[in-house]
């Protein structure tokens, strides 16, 4: 059939989609091109561990094209814009790529400059983020110097990548300061725009309980309006203040910049509106989005990209064959939540079912919403699976796209 599939973004979602497509349809059926602006594929789950010295930055980065099947064309270039009517992508250097199917997988961008004062005085000194590699490395240095005072972990607003990571940071910070013997000199505060520790009631109760158990103060419904690095204050839009000596802020997120320059492609935040089940753009059937770039009411997490991949690859095949789409994504999300002391929780949910206690993936398995050493080992083992199974587009044993129902206890908060 010799169709041209262009995938914008060579991160988790773009890479696994390209490799799955290559495996499924092969060179005779389609030509796949992946575009990204650099050669650094960062293992993002590892960023959480860098500030605490539990991961080395250089071990988290690998070459983007080397994660792609040899038959896939990789173009390293800036994306200027997508011309939906002409079915073409314009890249830097005057390159024009025509497509039969476009997959947007350019993730979410950090927008710290959109919050007043966040990148002003104090940025990189007493105000940090660990959501990118330089920030995580800088924070490692700051934590090593820290001898006591107020540490604040703050989520500026939704949506954000890996919504459990800020909670994990708070739990790990508690453990880190315990190990250093200065926990009694550190006040830890978790500040969130949500009305609880997490969005869904049962998980919010479990995770909020853990914060309390670890002596971490919880401040809710705090939408970050301003960061005053010099004065050491976070200020909310409703004029409440949280003082700090060290602030760890998850900045606002938006879609990639070129989305805003591509008429009709994205929404007001630069994410791509797609059908939540088919992942197809509502107005441009030849456009699909996957992973953090998609404007879905699902978590921006690598597991979501993984589970979406199966649906997306099947639906692209149906679309190219002129058949109605029949694969549906259920919103499946699966996250290990590190809690320190070599333990982790596991949560597993979808559009309709919130994170519940029980076991994963069946009545016998890893405990859900409960700390265990097995979950911690699962989180550590995932890094190998990421590079060797998930990115190459292979199935993870026992973990399918559809959320498993067996093993879940349907309790009420």
């Amino acid at each position, binding site marked *: 059939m010799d169709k041209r599939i262009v995938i914008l973004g060579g991160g988790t979602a773009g890479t696994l989609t390209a490799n799955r497509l290559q495996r499924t349809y092969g060179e005779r059926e389609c030509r796949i091109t992946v575009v990204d602006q650099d050669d650094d594929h960062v293992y993002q789950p590892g960023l959480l561990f860098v500030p605490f010295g539990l991961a080395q930055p250089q071990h988290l980065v690998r070459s983007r094209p080397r994660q792609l099947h040899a038959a896939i064309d990789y173009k390293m270039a800036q994306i200027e814009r997508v011309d939906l009517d002409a079915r073409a992508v314009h890249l830097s250097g005057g390159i024009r790529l025509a497509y039969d199917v476009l997959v947007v997988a350019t993730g979410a961008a950090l927008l710290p400059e959109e919050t007043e004062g966040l990148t002003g005085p104090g940025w990189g000194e007493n105000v940090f983020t660990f959501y990118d590699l330089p920030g995580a490395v800088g924070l490692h240095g700051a934590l090593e110097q820290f001898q006591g005072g107020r540490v604040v972990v703050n989520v500026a607003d939704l949506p954000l990548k890996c919504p459990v990571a800020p909670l994990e940071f708070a739990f790990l910070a508690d453990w880190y300061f315990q190990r250093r013997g200065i926990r009694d000199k550190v006040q830890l505060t978790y500040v969130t725009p949500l009305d609880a520790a997490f*969005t869904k009631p049962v998980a919010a109760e479990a995770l909020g309980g853990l914060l309390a158990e670890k002596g971490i103060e919880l401040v809710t419904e705090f*939408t970050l*309006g301003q960061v005053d690095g010099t004065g050491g204050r976070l200020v909310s839009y409703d004029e409440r203040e949280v003082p700090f000596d060290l602030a760890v802020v998850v900045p606002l997120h938006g879609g990639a910049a070129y989305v805003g320059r591509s008429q009709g492609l994205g929404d*007001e935040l630069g994410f791509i509106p797609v059908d939540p089940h088919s992942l197809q753009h509502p107005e441009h059937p030849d456009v699909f989005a996957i992973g953090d770039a998609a404007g879905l009411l699902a978590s921006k997490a690598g597991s979501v990209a993984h589970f979406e991949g199966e649906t997306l690859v099947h639906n692209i095949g149906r679309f190219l064959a002129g058949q109605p789409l029949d694969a549906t994504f259920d919103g499946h999300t699966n996250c290990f939540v590190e809690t320190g002391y070599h333990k982790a929780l596991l949560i597993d949910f979808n559009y309709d079912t919130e994170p519940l206690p029980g076991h994963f993936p069946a009545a016998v398995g890893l405990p859900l919403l409960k700390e265990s050493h097995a979950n911690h080992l699962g989180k550590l083992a995932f890094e190998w699976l990421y590079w060797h199974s998930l990115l190459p587009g292979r199935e993870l044993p026992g973990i399918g796209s559809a959320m498993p129902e067996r093993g879940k206890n349907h309790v009420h908060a």
Partner: protein
Amino acid sequence: MSTATYDDNAVPVDDEGFFTEPDRWTEAMAEQIACEAGIEELTERHWTVIRFMREQYAAKGTGPTVRVLGKTSGVTVKELYQLFPKGPAKTAAKIAGIPKPRGCI
């Protein structure tokens, strides 16, 4: 599921007081809901946001978040908090008679 009475009409609401049937809402109910939410008088700026919330709900099936409101409603986030001090998206959704906005996780 419970009911609330506004403008002499009993309407179904969820546990937090958000309308579950937005078609049952009338503009006459808004002042009363606002009063319950601690807003004494609805100005034209409040109405700009309330009407925008209803339009967005009709188009997308969920009300916008504060961030989206700030980018698209013509009212800045700062002013939104002045108009609806206890959380603009939730308060405006309640007054506009639409379900609680669903955020991302």
